[in-house]
C-alpha cells in the first residue's frame, strides 16, 4: 500500500464551547485532487486553518508524509511542502507580478548578505534559477506577458492564477486551495479547472480543494469529502456523492 501524502484522523477544533470541526478524517494520496464540500459555515475553512497551522487543532492527528504536523507553526508547515491559498486573494498588490514570484523564493536564495553584495557566482546562479522558475510558472498559468504589471492592477482571475503560481514556485507537494473559483467568470473557471488538472497530471502534486462550484468539484475530483456542521457526512467519488441522500438532504433540506 502506498503511503498517504496527507492522513488526517479525527481532527477536532473547539472554540470555547463551540465545536467547529468534529472528528474529520481526510486521506490524500500522491497525485490526487481531493475536494472538501459542505454548506456555508460547515467548517471547511477551519479544517484548512488546522492543516496549515493557522489554528492548533484541539484534537486529532495530521500526518503529512507520515510526520505529525498538527501544532506546528504555519511557516514550518509551508516549508515542509504543504502550501495554501486564501479565500481572499493575498498578493503583494504594490509589487509587480515577477516580484511576487521572487519574494516567494526568498528563502531558497543564499541568505548571506555579503554574497549578495559581491554577486558571487553561486549567488548569481541561484538568482537565475529562481528567475527561471518564476518565468516557468508564469508561463504555466498564462501570465508571462504580465510579468512587469503591478499585481494590484490585474483582473481578479489573473490574481487568482498568480496566487497559485506563487505557491507553486515554493515547490509544494500538497496545495490547499480555498475557494479558488469564487468570483471567477465561467471562462476563468474553465482555465482554473484545466490548471488544477495539469498540476496533478503534469507536475505530479496533490491538490486539496474547498469549492462551492459543484461542476468544477464534480469534474476534477478523485475523491470528495462532505462535511456539514463540522461533522463528516459522507465521502466517495463524484458519482457516489451526487447520489448520496444524506448529502442532498444537507444541501437542500428534508423533503
Amino acid at each position, binding site marked *: 500500500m502506498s503511503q498517504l501524502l496527507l492522513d488526517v484522523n479525527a481532527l477536532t477544533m473547539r472554540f470555547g464551547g463551540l465545536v467547529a470541526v468534529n472528528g474529520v478524517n481526510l486521506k490524500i494520496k500522491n497525485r490526487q485532487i481531493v475536494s472538501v464540500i459542505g454548506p456555508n459555515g460547515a467548517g471547511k475553512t477551519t479544517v484548512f486553518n488546522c492543516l496549515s497551522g493557522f489554528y492548533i487543532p484541539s484534537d486529532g492527528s495530521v500526518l503529512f508524509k507520515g510526520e505529525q504536523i498538527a501544532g506546528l507553526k504555519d511557516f514550518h508547515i509551508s516549508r515542509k511542502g504543504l502550501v495554501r491559498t486564501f479565500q481572499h486573494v493575498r498578493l503583494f498588490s504594490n*509589487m509587480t507580478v515577477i516580484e511576487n514570484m521572487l519574494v516567494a523564493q*526568498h528563502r531558497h536564495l543564499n541568505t548571506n548578505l555579503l554574497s549578495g553584495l559581491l554577486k558571487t557566482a553561486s549567488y548569481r546562479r541561484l538568482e537565475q534559477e529562481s528567475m527561471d522558475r518564476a518565468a516557468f510558472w508564469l508561463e504555466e498559468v498564462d501570465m508571462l506577458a504580465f510579468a512587469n504589471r503591478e499585481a494590484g492592477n490585474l483582473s481578479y482571475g489573473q490574481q487568482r492564477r498568480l496566487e497559485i503560481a506563487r505557491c507553486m514556485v515554493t515547490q509544494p507537494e500538497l496545495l490547499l486551495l480555498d475557494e479558488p473559483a469564487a468570483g471567477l467568470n465561467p471562462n476563468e473557471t474553465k482555465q482554473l479547472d484545466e490548471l488544477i488538472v495539469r498540476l496533478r497530471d503534469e507536475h505530479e502534486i496533490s491538490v486539496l480543494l474547498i469549492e462551492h462550484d459543484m461542476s468544477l468539484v464534480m469534474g476534477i475530483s478523485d475523491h470528495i469529502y462532505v462535511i456539514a456542521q463540522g461533522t463528516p457526512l459522507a465521502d466517495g467519488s463524484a458519482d457516489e456523492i451526487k447520489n448520496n441522500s444524506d448529502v442532498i438532504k444537507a444541501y437542500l433540506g428534508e423533503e
Partner: protein
Amino acid sequence: MSEASLYFLQQLINGLTIGSTYALIAIGYTMVYGIIGMINFAHGEIYMIGSYISFIVIAGLLGMGMVALPVILIIALVIAVFIASTYGWAVERVAYRPLRGSNRLIPLISAIGMSIFLQNYVVLAQGSRDVALAPQISGSWTFGDPQLFEVSLSYMQLIIWAVTLVCMTALTLFISRSRMGRACRACSEDQGMTNLLGIDTNRTIAMTFIIGAALAAVAGLLLGLYYGVVNPFVGFIAGLKAFTAAVLGGIGSIPGAMLGGLILGVTEALTSAYFPSEYKDVVSFGLLILILLFRPSGLLGKPEVEKV
C-alpha cells in the same frame, strides 16, 4: 538679479540644506511606520547619539594628531553609522519586538520611554551642556552682487547635499532592486503572508531599524559639523521635525519623506527669513496640524484603506 531675489536664493540654499538632513532622519520614521505601523519616537535620540559619536571620534582623531580631514571624516562617519545602527537594532530588540502583536498604543509608549531613557543616558555619560567642535570645513563659494547681496554656498552645504543625494540614491536602489529590499516591501504589505512564504520577518524589521538609524547617524554627523555644537536634547526637536516631514510627505512613503524633508526645510528657512525667526517652529508644527486635518495621508502617501 535684484537684492530680494538674491536674498530669497540664499534662504532657499539654507532651507534645502536643513531639509536634506530632515529627510535623512525622516526616512527612519517612515520606513519603520511602513513596516510595523508604529512611530519610533526614540529615532530622534539615535540621531543625537550619531552626532555625539562623530564629535567624539573627530575630536579624538584630531587629538591624536591626525591631519587628513577627509580620512577623519570618513572614519567618523563609519564609526557613527555602525554604533548608531547598533543602538537602533538594540532599541527594536529590547523595547519593541517583545511587544509585537500587542495593541498599537503599547509600543508607542515604549518608544517614548526609550527616548527619555536614551536622552538621560547621554546626559549622564556626556553631561547636559553643549559640546562644541571647531568648524572643520570652512570656505564657501559666493556669487551675486557685492553691492547688493552676496549669496554664499558653503562647502559644508555642498557636502550635505552630496551626501544626502548619495544616501537617498543608494536607499532607493536597495529598496527597489535588492532581494532584501523586496522582502522589506513584501513585509510592509502583508506581514503574515511574508512570514508564511518563509521570510524571517523579524530580521526584515530589524533591518529597517538599522537602515533608519544609519541614515540618522549620517544626518547627525552632517548637522553636527554644520552647527558645530551638540547637546543631549537636539534629538528631540530634530526628531519632531523629521516626523513632521515624514507625515507631510505621507508616512510610510520613502519618496514622501524625502520630499517632506525638503519642503519643511525650505518653509522654515523662508519663515525665519521674512518673519521673526522664533516663528519657524510655529510654522512647521502648524503645517503638521494642517496636514493632519486636511490631508492625513500626506502628499505622496496612499489613503489608508480600511481592511475588511
